[in-house]
């Protein structure tokens, strides 16, 4: 069975992780632009970072037969600095035509501040003006519910938004329904303590079905592991779900969403209507 990792920060991972992912049948991975664990000191540092994830990472991944894709943006945490954010946003368009760039992301909120919201809105406009997919970061822990509602309210009121082209990531039980009800895609991140467990991701599929759901390990420089995505594959199989459904969550669904960008190469194994049909 082939696996697609829709969200992972390979810049923070070792080459050994590419090897592990390849051994676990990962054929493609996607790297949203994010906070480095420290605030960057200038816009030039972001330019270097975008160059790294559009040029170096695809080469490193290719050694293990993995297609590497990425998303470009000003991340929610550093978006608090409006002046720096606008400087970064000014050169994002030069990266959007790179062969592995899928869209604008992971934009969103961190502490739900006014500045973060301003930069979120400006990057939504940037995505729309360049016909790009959008990958959204929802805040951590206690800030998640409010931040998700803030972004949903904005996007639901925006006439230019096609919800099919937007994924809200790091969704959990208290935010999934509102995201799906609005027609957006929802991804669930498997983190040991602070987000979802593999079991709770499969719970969500049992509650909501397979339509517009994704799962990711979101591996980065913190406590995280690309292998947790494969723990969820095992959990879904262990509960007795059909191979076809497992394949849809971990391979077909990423193809359906990411394949809306012509640059994404993997093809789904079956049509969406068949994959999402309820028994």
């Amino acid at each position, binding site marked *: 069975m082939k696996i697609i990792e829709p969200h992972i920060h390979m810049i923070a991972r070792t080459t050994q992780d590419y090897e592990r992912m390849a051994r676990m049948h990962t054929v493609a991975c996607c790297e949203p632009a994010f906070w480095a664990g420290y605030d960057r000191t200038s816009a030039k540092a972001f330019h270097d970072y975008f160059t790294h994830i559009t040029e170096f990472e695809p080469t490193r991944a290719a050694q293990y037969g993995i297609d590497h894709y990425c998303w470009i943006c000003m991340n929610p945490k550093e978006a608090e600095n409006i002046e720096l954010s606008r400087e970064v946003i000014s050169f994002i368009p030069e990266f959007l035509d790179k062969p592995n760039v899928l869209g604008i992301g992971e934009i969103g909120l961190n502490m739900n501040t006014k500045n973060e919201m301003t930069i979120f809105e400006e990057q939504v406009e940037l995505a729309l003006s360049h016909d790009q997919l959008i990958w959204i970061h929802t805040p951590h822990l206690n800030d998640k519910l409010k931040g998700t509602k803030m972004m949903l309210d904005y996007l639901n009121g925006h006439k230019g938004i096609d919800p099919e082209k937007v994924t809200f990531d790091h969704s959990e039980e208290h935010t999934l329904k509102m995201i799906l009800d609005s027609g957006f895609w929802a991804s669930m991140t498997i983190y040991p*303590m602070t987000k979802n467990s593999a*079991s709770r991701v499969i719970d969500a599929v049992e509650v909501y079905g397979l339509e517009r759901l994704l799962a990711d390990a979101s591996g980065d420089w913190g406590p995280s592991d690309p292998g947790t995505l494969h723990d969820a594959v095992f959990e879904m199989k262990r509960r007795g779900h059909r191979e076809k459904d497992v394949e849809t969550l971990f391979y077909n669904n990423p193809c359906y969403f990411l394949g809306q960008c012509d640059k994404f190469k993997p093809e789904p194994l079956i049509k969406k209507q068949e994959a999402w049909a309820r028994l």
Partner: protein
Amino acid sequence: MENIERAGLTPPKKGKEILDMYYLEARSHLLETAAILDRIERCDDGNKAVKDPRIKKLYEICEMLTKEKTNRAEQFLKMLSIS
């Protein structure tokens, strides 16, 4: 803590530091338990399954956690032990 008869090592850290270290772990374990109860209940025979005496015992343990001030882990295991 003055009621605990202490024979072991004195914890080097303050309570607040331990809380900061372990809060997310406690939150995560409790959340997983909530999700497991939902998981059982979602099944065809879920309503019956959640009335299992083992689940009832877990609820009793939850109550104990809000009342007992010391030795919660010991009480937890004693409540599950065959007498």
